[in-house]
């Protein structure tokens, strides 16, 4: 019978940062790697939905940091991982916000990135055994 110590040792073996990195690059992938299918699907749908709606609302994708607010927005956008890279490469989103919904969209994209970071850290905690 496996003891708590055995479970901790098992959880700590291997590359423990894989779910963290996978979860950051692709929303929900960290949980999928840990076979948490339901949690991964909910996280993936929420973050992809939020990011997709942000793009659909012509939200702005931050390309660089000119002042402190731009820097914070850029950091939030980077939390989206590959979604951000693909969107920038495809030229999605707006360069300038011209209407109110574009402002909502910009916030949706930034918050999707921040939620993705929270989800990736959660996958890491599951991997290390800190969370059940």
């Amino acid at each position, binding site marked *: 019978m496996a003891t708590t110590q055995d479970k901790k040792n098992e959880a700590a073996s291997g590359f423990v940062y894989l779910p963290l990195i996978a979860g950051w690059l692709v929303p929900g992938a960290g949980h999928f790697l840990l076979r948490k299918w*339901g*949690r991964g699907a*909910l*996280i993936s*749908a*929420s*973050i992809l*939905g*939020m990011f997709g*709606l942000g793009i*659909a*609302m*012509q939200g702005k994708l931050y390309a660089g940091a000119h002042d402190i607010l731009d820097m914070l927005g850029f950091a939030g956008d980077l939390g989206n991982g590959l979604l951000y890279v693909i969107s920038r490469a495809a030229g999605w989103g707006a360069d300038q916000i011209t209407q*109110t*919904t574009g402002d*909502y969209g910009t*916030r*949706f994209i930034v*918050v*999707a990135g921040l*939620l993705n970071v*929270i*989800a990736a*850290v*959660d996958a890491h905690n599951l991997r290390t055994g800190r*969370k*059940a």
Partner: protein
Amino acid sequence: MFRPSHFAAVLLFALFASVVFGVTQRSTPPRMVRYGLYCFVLFVGSAIVLSWLMFLIAR
């Protein structure tokens, strides 16, 4: 192009954020659901209260 009203945007934002908060901040499904609902109500409720406050201040 998707053009939601301000309130529809609040509802969508609260829905997505609450789902992620519920899944990541609690360990068991019943507690996840309860915490997700709690966050959703707080998001939407605080938006409504702050909107009324701003409306009354602006008058």
